């Protein structure tokens, strides 16, 4: 037990109570470290609790694949590790080829993965496509299947991670905005909106969409910018998706087959936003684009209803892979951010690897590709 009363000190201060911050906090607490998490709203308010729920290893950047494969195993262990199944279930993900040229892209992709020793993405022929998803349009020529992908409930997951962190002794300050953070002779000092100061030896930046601004405060500015991926959900159309989630090869679209028969639509549509005012405006034009493609890919969706759109602030980076690991400029500072709207699946493994780096150990998977200074090198 830690005496939090007057101490206002911890081994590790984590800024950002999303799933990355909580996952990291849990692992550190389990290794006996005292941890404080500062969350300006409440855990799960932004991307962590409001993403599309895709637990997807398919289609990932090659640099992320070892992490995604390892993380997928951890999704099966959540009842044990965070006391909740997080609403996870398997919904195979099928990436469709709409032409022979696209089929070639998929064949190449599988070969690349096989050469690297991975077999989670498999080329399937037209018959298998129609077995998996009987209502896709006739022009589809084949696909690439990832049978182990699935979906989960983001809010439930975020809450389960936050509750587990607290059970493990992590102190989460919700509704507590960090207005200043700086390195000191003994580590870091963080000041909150109410003027209180906290001290810690080490500092973790898991501030998601706000990572650009936060890292600047510490003298290690990161090229993270805010985006607002937009999702929509249909009414229940049982029987149409057959439990298979769909993606495309040449166009933007992700259709996730929710267990209740509705379809969650994502795939990279974005809305205009104002990060300062924390406002996002859903752009119906973007939804219309998605709808056009949807009725082409699954014609029976013509009569389905769009019942809700939503968006959330995400931290994005131009090469679309995260920044994770030790700061190259400020000693004792660690970043885990910039997941560019596909961090949800990676959270379990990221928490574990980050805790290893933070504790000064060799990480089980190398974080070299996610270095914060990778853009500087290429200049």
């Amino acid at each position, binding site marked *: 037990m830690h005496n939090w009363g007057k101490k206002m000190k911890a081994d590790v201060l984590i800024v950002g109570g999303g799933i990355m911050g909580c996952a990291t906090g849990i692992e550190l607490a389990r290794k006996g470290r005292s941890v404080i998490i500062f969350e300006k709203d409440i855990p799960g308010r932004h991307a962590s609790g409001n993403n599309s729920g895709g637990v997807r290893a398919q289609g990932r950047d090659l640099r992320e694949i070892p992490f995604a494969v390892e993380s997928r195993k951890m999704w099966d262990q959540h009842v044990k590790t965070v006391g909740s199944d997080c609403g996870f279930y398997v919904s195979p993900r099928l990436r469709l080829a709409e032409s022979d040229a696209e089929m070639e892209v998929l064949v190449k992709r599988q070969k690349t993965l096989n050469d690297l020793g991975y077999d989670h993405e498999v080329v399937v022929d037209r018959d298998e496509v129609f077995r998996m998803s009987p209502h896709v349009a006739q022009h589809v020529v084949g696909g690439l299947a990832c049978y182990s992908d699935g979906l989960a409930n983001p809010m439930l997951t975020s809450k389960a991670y936050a509750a587990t962190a607290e059970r493990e002794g992590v102190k989460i300050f919700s509704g507590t905005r960090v207005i200043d953070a700086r390195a000191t002779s003994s580590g870091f000092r963080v000041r909150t909106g109410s003027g209180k100061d906290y001290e810690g030896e080490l500092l973790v930046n898991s501030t998601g969409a706000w990572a650009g601004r936060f890292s600047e405060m510490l003298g290690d500015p990161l090229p993270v910018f805010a985006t607002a991926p937009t999702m929509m959900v249909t009414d229940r159309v049982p029987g149409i998706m057959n439990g298979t989630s769909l993606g495309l090869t040449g166009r933007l679209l992700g259709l996730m087959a929710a267990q209740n028969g509705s379809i969650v639509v994502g795939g990279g549509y974005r809305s205009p936003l104002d990060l300062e005012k924390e406002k996002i405006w859903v752009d119906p034009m973007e939804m*219309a684009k998605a709808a056009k493609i*949807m009725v082409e890919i699954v014609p029976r969706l013509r009569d*389905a209803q769009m*019942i*809700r759109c939503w968006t959330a602030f995400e931290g994005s980076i131009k090469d679309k892979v995260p920044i994770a690991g030790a700061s190259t400029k400020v000693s004792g500072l660690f970043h885990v951010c910039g997941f560019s709207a596909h961090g949800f699946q990676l959270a379990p493994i990221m928490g574990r690897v980050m805790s290893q780096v933070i504790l000064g150990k060799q990480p089980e998977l190398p974080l070299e590709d996610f270095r914060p200074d990778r853009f500087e090198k290429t200049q």
Partner: protein
Amino acid sequence: MKKTYDAIVIGAGPSGIACATELAGKGLDVAVVDEQAGPGGQIYRNITGSSAAQQKILGTDYTDGLELVNAFSSSAVDYFPQSRVWQAAENGAVYFSRNGVSQQLRAPNLVLCTGAMERPVPFPGWTLPGVMTCGGMSNLYKDSGLVPSQSLVIAGSGPFVWLVSEHLLALDVPIAAILDTAPLKQVFPALKQVSGAVKRLDFMMKGVRLIGEVYLAARKKRVPIYRNVTELQAQGAEKLERVSARAGKKQLVFDVDTLLVSEGIIPNTALFRQVGCSHRWDPVQRYWHPEVRGEGQTSLSSVYIAGDGGFVHGAKSAEYKGRITALHIAKEMRRLSTVEYDEQLTPVRKQLDRELFPRPFIDALYAPRRDLFALDDETVVCRCEGVSAGRVRELVRQGLTDHNEIKAIIRCGMGPCQGRMCSAAVLELISEVSGMNPANTRQHRLRPPIKPVSLQELANAQLGEEDES
């Protein structure tokens, strides 16, 4: 097709048509977008198509709308009936579906005249076919002149219960009973507000007369009226077969296949919540309503409110509010000088004030009673997703006090109605279990589209060609 206007009015009820007519009269380019087939809103629904017999039953409260509707019809407004608005934006864009196509209009001024809706109150069996609202019944009659021929029960509290009872008695509909659920003791707190009410004795007498006439007609037809009714239940396997309730020590049972309920009228705030207006909690009537200033201004400079969507004050007030907002916009758009504005505003403001005198008394008298949301754990709260009161309580006990988060976990409010039916009840459950004042909770958010849009309609969208210059 024309895409930009000086003002877009959403809703063609009394406030919307009064506002639009006034705006057009001042030379502004105005569009009115409304879901119904003809102007008039719920109160004056089908007024130009209704028969003399219908008009006689519905009385002057209904026929008073003719003048307003006629003025609107002969104005220079671009009118889009049968158009379902599903999103509006602070930048003045309005998205709606009409004839299977999604469209967009834009204006620097949006006037949201979304009107009122009946307060959805779950009770055991409320989702059974055969249970409908008094408003639903009233609309059916206005549209088609149809009323049930089988015996029915009317239950609830508020003026609407008496109004619908009066109409159905006059139409010789067989009524098994009228169950007044308003607690008699609410008269006492309401008396604090009586000073405003006595300024409008005519209005108050109209209410007293209405209830008196229902009593007389009911006695003549041997329809029992029970006061102080509690424990209302709709029972049946597949559809309503029986209504049970308690009046004092007396257990009541009626074998009927129709139950009409009404527990008061609340603002329809869906579009205000979607567009992002700030809201306030009204502790007497226990509903969220958009923050509104004297001329209908909201927290967003491009968005105005007129009518019951801001706060429920009735049809006459709605009409005056619509006029006042129109005058304000005309002044802002420099179609009226300040002098002209003051001249024209003063008489309307007086009329509105007169309408508002008795409202605090009525609101207190018909405030939702304390046990209105004292729901059994088994009672379904969210009918779209089948979530019970007990399940919501369970999550609140776990420490969740934000409907938005509870929704993301157990789906209450996640279905096609987006919480229109359950959010009041969920809020009361949050307040009941956590002890939080509803005013301090995070309001349930509504995401676009506020009404479902078919993918084909969306795919057919004509949203792109913007003619901004």
